[in-house]
């Protein structure tokens, strides 16, 4: 999943730099090549592309088109289209309580998860930036969550967050029912998703911080600049492409959250942990309402698209590329 999301943002990073870099590379590389290539090669080129193209059409473009079509059609429980519905499904969906709570929960996940994970991991990476045996151990520790699958850690948290048998309430002295209380269930899910996001962000920030030439910070320190000032005025601007990238990936990941919910809460109690993708899954598979599920998936897609575009437009000019 992570890797696909990675791809999603990569695409936008590409779009952004398209005019500056992409076209340049493209024409340079192909312009030079064109002269050498005999005409018969065009068939071979298409043949080599064909396998990937076929799978992309069947399992990426077709399902997307299918979702678009189904969202505006009347679809029976076998998934066959029996009529045209226009925007009725969307209208119906917007009036439903499930939808508004799914929307609210998904936005809450984005609003809390992304800033917390980003600030936390940036801080950790900054403290680890110098290479030393001690930092290398810390690095391993913070990257370790990557090797633990979503399913495993969700199950561990199921026990850990249990109000009486779990350890969290006991050591913190809290008396919270976490996943079984509709007021706190979402916070339980947040803890899990934040935990899962640490390793990936940490590694990205760390490698970006280490790529910054050390002399910059050193000379600034010699001039008497404080660590905070060095960070804000030298390191952070140089880090901004990575930061933008991380914020985007995290945002999409938060929008797509479904695993811990499928395993731990089933969207409950009282719809308090239903997210967009979970709603899509439950309307599509539990209730076999394909057209509603298609509507939800289209809305989820549009949300990711809007958020990413928004990020790129607000960050325009503020992101510093070396």
């Amino acid at each position: 999943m992570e890797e696909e999301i990675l791809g999603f943002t990569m695409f936008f990073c590409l779009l952004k730099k398209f005019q500056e870099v992409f076209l340049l590379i493209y024409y340079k590389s192909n312009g030079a090549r064109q002269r050498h290539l005999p005409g018969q090669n065009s068939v071979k080129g298409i043949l080599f592309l064909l396998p990937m193209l076929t799978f992309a059409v069947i399992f990426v473009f077709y399902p997307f088109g299918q979702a678009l079509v189904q969202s505006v059609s009347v679809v029976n429980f076998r998934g066959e289209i029996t009529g045209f519905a226009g925007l009725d499904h969307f209208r119906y969906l917007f009036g439903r309580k499930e939808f508004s709570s799914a929307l609210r929960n998904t936005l809450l996940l984005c609003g809390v998860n992304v800033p917390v994970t980003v600030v936390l991991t940036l801080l950790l990476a900054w403290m680890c930036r110098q290479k030393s045996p001690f930092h290398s151990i810390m690095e391993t520790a913070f990257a370790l969550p990557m090797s633990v699958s979503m399913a495993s850690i969700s199950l561990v948290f199921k026990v850990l967050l249990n109000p009486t048998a779990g350890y969290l309430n006991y050591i913190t002295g809290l008396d919270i029912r976490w996943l079984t209380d509709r007021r706190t269930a979402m916070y339980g899910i947040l803890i899990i998703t934040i935990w899962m996001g640490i390793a990936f962000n940490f590694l990205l920030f760390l490698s970006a911080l280490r790529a910054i030439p050390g002399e910059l910070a050193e000379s600034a320190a010699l001039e008497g600049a404080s660590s905070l000032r060095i960070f804000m005025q030298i390191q952070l601007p140089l880090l901004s492409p990575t930061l933008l990238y991380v914020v985007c990936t995290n945002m999409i990941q938060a929008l797509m959250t479904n695993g811990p919910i499928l395993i731990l809460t089933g969207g409950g109690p009282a719809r308090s942990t239903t997210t967009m993708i979970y709603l899509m899954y439950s309307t599509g598979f539990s209730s076999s309402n394909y057209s509603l599920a298609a509507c939800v998936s289209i809305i989820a897609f549009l949300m990711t698209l809007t958020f990413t575009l928004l990020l790129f437009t607000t960050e325009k000019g503020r992101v510093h590329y070396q």
Partner: protein
Amino acid sequence: MKNSNRLLRLLPDLVLVLMAAVVLFPVFYGLMGAFKTPQEFSSYPPTLFPESFRNLDNFRYVFDMTPMLRYYLNSLIVATLSSTVRMFLAVFAAYAFVFYRFPGHRFFFLLMLTTMMLPPDVLVIANYQTVSGMGLLDTYLGMCIVSFVGASQMFMLRQQFMTSPVALHDAAMLDGCGDFRFIFSVLLPTARPVLITLFLQSFLAQWNTYLWPLLVTNRNSMRTVQVGITMLTTIDATNYEVILAATFVTMLPTMVVYLILRKAVSHAMSSGALIS
């Protein structure tokens, strides 16, 4: 003055140790819980360490109740198959884009990149209909087939292939070297680090997928590890020691592999940011 300075310098390291403890705690807690008895979970206050590490009943129960080794095999097959096919398709497509010119060259390149824009989770419903229509439910192929397209892999490989001169390709072709021979004995050996990185990335992602294998498998013997262990419990279940024994069995091997391949995996994950 000097003392407080030294303390200030030590502060980040202290914070790091503390945070590391917080981050690793759930994993540690999970591993410990696998050895506890049901009584230990029902008594208050909860404990951190089990009474005895010789209590292996939970593991016995997990291996009796679930075909755990079969789950492992399934996960291994699915992750390997889908990553391998994905790599092959990506290599061929990248090869086509770098060394050949054909009508719609640029259009197809952008079209492939567009696949990155559609998160697979929003496509599962229509894909489920397609795959079940093909009669591929409960098969390895059905579990893998939706992840054969890897546009990010294709893009990275294209960047890599563009470093080898076209003249080399032309010369090889003139000397009667076939396309496949050129790919496998000239192009790929020089791209080994990139190939390993991309394969690892893909393998990790496939190993951890949950939603898709959950949807397309009904038979217990076809489930992957991730799906299989969650079948041991329901939302209301309180068999904590069994759950934790199952997670122990799934977590430990991947953690050991991670610790062995630490450098490669870290590199694989952070190289995704290369592009920006």
